[in-house]
Structures are given as C-alpha cells and as structure tokens.
C-alpha cells in the first residue's frame, strides 16, 4: 500500500514537473541575457568579439574572460563577477573617458563608408552629400575612424552637461578612506 501510494505520488509529481518544464521553458541562454544587460552596448569590439551580444555569450559559456569590456569599466566587470560567482579581475586597459565621433563636414567626400561601419546607425548622409553624426546616438566606439578614406572624423570628448553634473563624494577623510578600501577590495 505504502509503495503504491508513494509510487503514485512520484508519478503525479513527475508529470507536473514535465509539464512545468514545457510551460516555463526559457528561450536562449538566460545568463548570457543577464550579462548582455550589464554591458554598455557600445558595440565597439574592443573585447575581441564583434559586439556586446557575442561577448556576453562567450562569457556565459566561460570561453571569454570577464574583464575584456573596456567601456564598461570596473563596475561592469564586478557585476559580471558577482553574477558568475568568480573572482573579480583587474582591467588592463586604462579607464576610458566618454568620447563621441565628429565629422569635419567640409572635408567629407560623401563616400558612405563610415555609415556602413557604424554599429548603431548614428551617422546620417547620402552618397556625395556630406555626412553627420547624431551626437546623442554615438556610442564612441571609433569603428568609423579607420574606414574614412580622407580622415575627416575626429574623436572628441563628450561634452559635459550641467544637467548631468552630479555631486562628488564629500571631501572628508572617512569618505576617502572608505573609497580607498572599496577600490583595494575590488582589485584583490
């Protein structure tokens, strides 16, 4: 009797589980999705992969290191380390200041090569018309610089807006010590 009822229970539970896996099946790789959400979406390829999504997939399948995203910086690396449950790793490249690309329009010959290179469609222009970059859409990936045959694209520092200014930490010793402790903690 006991065997029968336990067996019956196991059967029912098994059926429920089978249905649940069907019903709640998740498409794709949830870890890669989460990592992708942490990446800055600059699409610059500095990590060695052709975009943020491929890098996220490589990290999720533990093919790539967690510290290759330069624009994401330390914050992104630590978030990924937390998610993957691995030790943080220092980023070798120096922390980048936010940049945007700018076309010197009077020198542009309208060849459309940069338009093809831009991963986020931030460049507008037509053949033989000069091109311009939508500042608000540019991620600063620098992918348009090399294709330009006349070298008329500059990388400029992203202008600082007064609306986006934010208060620095208070200038007290404790706040500084706290900050240093945090930094050194992150590098171990």
């Amino acid at each position, binding site marked *: 009797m006991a065997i029968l009822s336990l067996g019956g229970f196991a059967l029912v539970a098994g059926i429920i589980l089978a249905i649940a896996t069907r019903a709640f099946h998740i498409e794709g790789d949830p870890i890669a999705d989460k990592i992708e959400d942490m990446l800055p*979406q600059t*699409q610059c390829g500095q990590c060695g992969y052709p*975009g943020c999504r491929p890098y996220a997939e490589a990290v999720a399948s533990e093919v790539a290191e967690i510290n290759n995203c330069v624009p994401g910086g330390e914050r992104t690396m630590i978030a990924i380390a937390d998610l993957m449950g691995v030790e943080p790793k220092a980023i070798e490249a120096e922390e980048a200041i936010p940049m945007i690309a700018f076309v010197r329009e009077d020198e542009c010959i309208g060849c459309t090569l940069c338009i093809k290179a831009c*991963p*986020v469609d931030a460049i507008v222009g037509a053949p033989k018309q000069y091109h311009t970059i939508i500042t608000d859409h540019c991620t600063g990936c620098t992918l348009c610089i090399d294709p330009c045959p006349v070298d008329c694209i500059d990388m400029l520092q992203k202008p600082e807006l007064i609306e*986006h*200014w934010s*208060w620095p930490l*208070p200038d007290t*010793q404790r706040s500084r010590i706290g900050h240093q402790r945090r930094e050194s903690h992150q590098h171990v």
Partner: protein
Amino acid sequence: MSDSSLFQSLMHSLGLGHSDFNGGIHPPMHKITAAQASEVSPMPPVLIVPLKQHIGEACIPLVQIGDHVYRGQKIARADAYVTASIHAPTSGKVVKIEDHRIPHPSGMGLPCMFIEPDGHDTIDPACLPIVNWRENDPDLLRERIRQSGIVGLGGAAFPTFIKLLRDRHHPVHTVILNGIECEPYLTNDHRLMLENTRQVIEGMQILMHVVQAQKAIIAIEDNKPDAAEAINACLSKQRLDLTVEVRLMPTRYPQGSEKQLIESLTGKQIPAGKLPLHVGVLCQNIGTTKAVYDAIAEGIPLTERMVTVSGDAVPKPKNLRVRIGTPMRFVFAQCGLEDFDDIQILHGGPMMGEKLRSADIPIVKSSTGILAMHTATMQSVHKHEDPCIRCGHCSIVCPIHLVPNLLADHCRNNQFDKAEDYHLFDCIECGCCSYVCPSNIPLVHYFRYGKGQLAQLTRERRFADESKARSEQRERRIERENADKAARRQRVRAETKPVLDGKNSTENDGDAS
C-alpha cells in the same frame, strides 16, 4: 512623547487642533533683516540673464546681439512643456550671448544674454494688465501666468502654470499661501507680506480663481506675528466674501517644506510620488503669489524679485528688490561688502543653500537670498567626519521618517540599489540630519552624491538599451538586405542560365518565364 502625539492625532481626528509633521529642528534664526524696510537695488552696468532658470529644458533666444529690448519683452522662448520663458529685466541693448557661470554647485556655465540698461527702464508697450480678471476665463489667466515666465520663487524654480493645471479627478479645494520662511537668515517673504500685503492677497485671489478653489489658508510661522497682523488687517478692510484663514504655525525647520506644511495644516500625508493636487491642495510661496499679481493685474512678467542679502560677513544686511540678472558682486556692494577674501557665498539659506565659487554670478529667479559668511564661521563644518555612533538623532529629526545613517553608509559604499530601497529619493535634502549629527557626518552630501550616481546609472542604462535596439535594428536591416540581394542574384542567374546553356535545357524555359 508618544502620549502627546496620540493625543494630537485624536484631537485631529475629532477636528480639533492641528496635527504636525515628524521631526524637525530649531536652528538659530538670525533674521537680522526682518524689521528693516526693503530697498530697491539700482541698475547694474550690465545684466547677465541666464537662458535657463528653471527645472526643465533651456530656452531659445528670440532677439539678436545689438537688438534693443524693453522691460518685460520676451527674450527667450520656451519650447518644451516644462519650461518658463525669459523676459528682459529692463530696457536696453543686447550686447552679447555667451556662456557664463550660473548659481549652480558645479560652478559650470550656461548660455546667458548680456543686456546693457539704457537707463529709461521702459516697459514693453505690449505688456497689458488683465484688469477685470474676475470675469476672465481661468485658462486664459493660466496662459498669461505661463507666458510671464513665473516659476516657484521659493527656490525650486518649478514652472508655476503646471501646478495650476486643473485635473477633473482631483479638484483643488484649498489654496495654501506658504508664508513660513523657515530657513535662517531669509526674510524676503516676510517683508513682502508686510510691504505688499494687498498685492499678495490679490495674487492669492487670482490663484483661487484659476484653480476654482473655495478656501484659502495663509500659513505664517509664529515668529512673524506682525505679518499675520498686517494680513488680517488687510483682509478685514477688504471684507472678502471668501473663506480665508490665517494660521500661525509653530516655528520649526522645515515647516515651510511643501509636503510638511500640508501635513501640518490638513493632517494629510502626501504619499511618495504624489502631488499636493492629489489631496486637493495648491501650495504657493508668497513671492510667487506676488509675481502672479504683477503678471495679471499689472501686466509685468517676472523681471524682479526680493532677495535677502545677509550673513555675518555683510556689513549692512538688507532686503533688496533686484532685477533678474544683476551680478551678485553688485548686489553685495549695495550692502557694503566688496572684498571677498576668506568669504564663502551661499545661494539660498544656510540649511539648503549651495556654496558658490565666485561673486560674478547673476541673481536668478530662484535666488531667495545670498549669504556671505566668513570662512572661519563656516569652518567647513564637515571636514572631520567621525564614525557613526548609532545615536539615532538623525532618524528622530528626519521629517520623512528616513534612516539617514544607514542611507549614508549605502551611498558611501556605492551600494546605490540598497540606498534606493531605503527610499533615498524621498529625502528632501532639508539638512536636519547633518545639523544634529554629533559625529559631523555630512549626511545630506552623501545623499546628493547617491542621487547623482543613481541618476547617472539610469541614464547610462537607458542609453545602453537604446544603443542595443539600434544595433539590433541595423542587424535586421542588413539581414533583410542580404536576403533581398541573394534573391535578386538567384533570379538573375535563373533568367540568364537558359541563354548560356543554349538548346539542351528546355525544361528550365518554363520555370524562368
């Protein structure tokens, strides 16, 4: 303590007495300029008018360099919804438009219009009063208030007309005039209530008409009995057929903060993320109400404001009626202060005001007061921060019921998500917690840092999401184009094949056609 608050809430639920907000402090008030009549500031050699003086988008200039402008002429237009236009503070010539420092803690600048006064102060002939405003449509009056560039003059600079929009689901029954002025040193609203009593009351009537409220409360802190007297006298002389009540409130900082005042007056707490409108109340500052009067009954847009010039480094502190755009150095000179060595300038009151790095910054619409303090008195109070001793003083005084010491820890350690969970964004930055902290922890500064960092993170996240969408869209487009190209190539190949192969492929002929 708990007995008395229980008693209070009982009294309140019975409709007796009034309730009160939680916490608060009693800093020394230093209202040195309260008993002194205000003066009109002379015209400076050049007015520097920032093209953005409110929360929201910047304005677009409407005049060019070399143009002559009248006082009250609109010189910059507001396109976005949450904006307020800018008007010429006096008649004169536009000499240049360039970036100049504005009163902002960053010390950064914004485009400003430089106007050289011609000395005549001619008012724009297009500025006409709406004399019979009582018979006028409320919407028309509100549009005039919008066109007159009026923003909250209590310091927040939020465009006033937005607060006046009527909502069918939330009718406003009470207009509250905020005559509390709880910040130490500041007395500009106090002087307005004494010197412009009639105008303030008429401004209040205009506001009541615009939102169709039946009742008004004028709230005054009990350290200004003369202001309450003046208003009562004026009210009884006018024999208004409106219900207007003058309420003396206990002196306690931050009594004048909008949500705290409404809680004290009505017993209703405004939940986080809601507006006074949702409890049927409109709250306006005294200066703003006077500006509404000027715009409607006199026809003059916002071009001048009352500014308290005070602080222990000012030899002759006083209230001045100053044109917007007057450089602070010029204003301080009226009060006998010319040398700024070892002096800190504060924009606003000592509790919530911001330190400025120079005196060559113009007065703007939100300048309630400018204070000059000896650096020694300011003592950079918070240079030596000690560890938190968990005394709990900060939580006791917080009017929002926050736990400042935990919040500060989270902000200091960059644990912003935790800070958000502890309701960082509900903090009104009143400064009570920093004021009482025995360990000298600059709590509010940490909160400002945390709020800034969170805003930055949100912006970055949004940009990343947009970039991702753009890149995905591009990939889809490229795929589509490639598919199209492949299809075309196949078609072309299929068409050309029979010709190349000649006679032996008779089956393909049918397919290609």
